[in-house]
């Protein structure tokens, strides 16, 4: 277990800066997920921690030691790649023991470590197979096994589940969560899938365009997003954003209706343009603000129905824990004002 401390980390390719001064402290044993849309720099950041990308500026400390110029193999890390990166000509056992064999570790130590890792991941019957003879999920487990054998302080996962089908992804997600509980190592996990981030993370780091947008526990990000980007990225289906205008210090007007927001700490200036954010799952309250929605499409998933429609020209999605049916043309939606999140036109949160 090691803590990781990143201070004002920057990465440039020539003149183009892609990571713009990221600072972050990761506690020992913490499971941190980097999440963001593609191109946000989450993988680059992970690769800088791994030592696969040079650090242009700033400090990276792992376990209290400055690691900027330390060889990747000496950083006490192990990485699981999106493509698994298994050696196709080696058996599962040889894949897992590669690092130890290259370091000329004693044979009984290699055997013991490979057996231990194989037991944790239920790979024992597969040790003599080659990667080509394994399924995607099995390959992924071998890749994780190879990381375990290295007995690292920190595990790095680079979108490890994105090559798996949906069902297997859920299964492997649970396996990784269990693994973290068993090994209790520090883990950093990169994904663009907010569900993986929500379910696995102790803390989520939301990145956009080389900046950290917000760091917090999954529930903090869900309940108390700092900006419209985080609010939209965390949660599925994404939060609805409606154009609003302040018409009193503690109230806004949306689609011709005045919505009182007594929980606001700030006073709004009359006439200010705002965005009102409300999650689909919060549009099913029993009392609060009531609005009529014109229904376009109802997607019935069995347990829940996502109703797509418009309110006063603004599109939005509402969730219903019941069958709605396709014939419905109008739906009453109702939400508690304390579930509303308010953002200014630039996306910053108004609290």
């Amino acid at each position, binding site marked *: 277990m090691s803590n990781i401390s990143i201070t004002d980390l920057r990465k440039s390719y020539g003149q183009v800066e892609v990571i713009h001064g990221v600072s972050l402290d990761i506690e020992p044993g913490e499971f941190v997920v980097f999440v963001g849309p593609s191109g946000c720099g989450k993988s680059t950041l992970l690769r800088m921690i791994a030592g*696969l990308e040079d650090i242009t500026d700033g400090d990276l400390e792992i376990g209290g030691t400055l690691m900027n110029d330390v060889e990747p*193999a000496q950083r006490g890390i192990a990485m699981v790649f999106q493509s698994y*990166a298994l*050696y196709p*000509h080696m058996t599962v056992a040889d894949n897992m023991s590669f*690092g130890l064999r*290259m370091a000329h570790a004693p044979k009984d130590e290699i055997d013991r470590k490979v057996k231990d890792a194989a037991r944790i991941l239920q790979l024992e019957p597969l040790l003599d197979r080659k990667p080509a003879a394994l399924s995607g999920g099995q390959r992924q487990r071998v890749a994780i096994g190879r990381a375990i054998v290295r007995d690292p302080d920190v595990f790095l996962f680079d979108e490890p589940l994105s090559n798996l089908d949906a069902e297997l992804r859920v299964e492997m997600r649970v396996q990784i969560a269990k693994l973290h509980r068993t090994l209790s190592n520090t883990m950093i996990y990169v994904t663009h899938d907010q569900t993986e981030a929500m379910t696995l993370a102790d803390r989520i780091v939301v990145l956009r365009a080389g900046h950290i947008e917000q760091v917090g526990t999954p529930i903090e990000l869900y309940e108390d997003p700092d900006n419209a980007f985080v609010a939209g990225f965390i949660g599925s289906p994404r939060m609805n954003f409606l154009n609003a205008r302040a018409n009193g210090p503690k109230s806004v007007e949306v689609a011709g209706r005045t919505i009182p927001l007594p929980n606001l700490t700030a006073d709004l200036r009359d006439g200010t343009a705002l965005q009102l954010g409300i999650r689909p799952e919060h549009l099913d309250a029993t009392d609060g603000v009531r609005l009529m929605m014109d229904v376009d499409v109802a997607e019935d998933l069995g347990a829940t129905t996502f109703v797509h429609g418009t309110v006063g020209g603004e599109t939005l999605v509402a969730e219903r824990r019941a069958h709605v049916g396709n014939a419905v043309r109008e739906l009453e939606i109702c939400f508690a004002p304390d579930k509303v999140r308010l953002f200014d036109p630039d996306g910053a949160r108004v609290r």
Partner: protein
Amino acid sequence: MGVSKTKQPLRKRGGKARSEERRFAFLFVMPALLLVVVFRIVPLIWGFVLSLTDARGVTEGAFIGFDNYAELARDPAFHDSMANTILLIATLPIWIMVPMLLAILIHQGVPGGKFYRAVYFFPATLSSVIVGSIFNVLLRNDGQLNQFLELFGIGAIDWLGNSNTALLSLIAVQLWATFGMSLLIFLAGLSTVPSDMIEAAKLEGASMLQTFWHVIIPTLRPIIEFVAVVTTIGVLTNMFGLIYVLTAGGPGTSTTLPEFLIWIELGRMNRPGYAAAISMVLFVLMAGIAYAQVRIMSRNVNV
């Protein structure tokens, strides 16, 4: 439901439909098949029949059984050509290692890699007659190579006129002229080695050399075997032009390869029957080597 209805009558006529389809498919394969039969199989059989006769140019040869093969077994020129062939094949590792190592260096991104790639490939575009003419000048007794060696106090060597150096000189020239193609094949192969596999090895503490040996070269194995087969066939069948221009098989028989011997027997001695017998031996030799190499290749097909 509609699907199964339309399927049923089809299934009834299944046998007929399939044979029709097969006949149609055969039509497409036919032109290629015809070319192979007319230009490969027929000459091969014809060559074999010819090798059993004492044909001498214009005269229709009489059937003499395996006499030509018996004579081959006693022919010192043929023995020498076989010994030369063995020496040539023994240099095969060089033919593979040189382009592979250079390709790895270029792939690693040495400065000017693109320039080297072009320069190394350039000789492959030259005809063997031109290559031969160039090296005839360079390797002459008073040629540039000897002038260069003189700077280091090394006396002139008659590279092509000395039976100890002639074959090796020839091999070196052919290597220079053709390794660019192998280099390109290796570069193409290297570009398919996944970079995260190499990164994984780096993360696991493998040194550069260990990564080459345990990760890159095993991944390149099918490419190495392909280059080996193509190169073997190349050196056994494509060196005629160079031999003709540079040494004409001499001095003595020191640079006579089976291919050149065939031409001597056919063109100079006017003994097509005997030449055909040598061709058959060369064919069997190459088929054997190629078979062995393909066997090795298919053994690793599941990597």
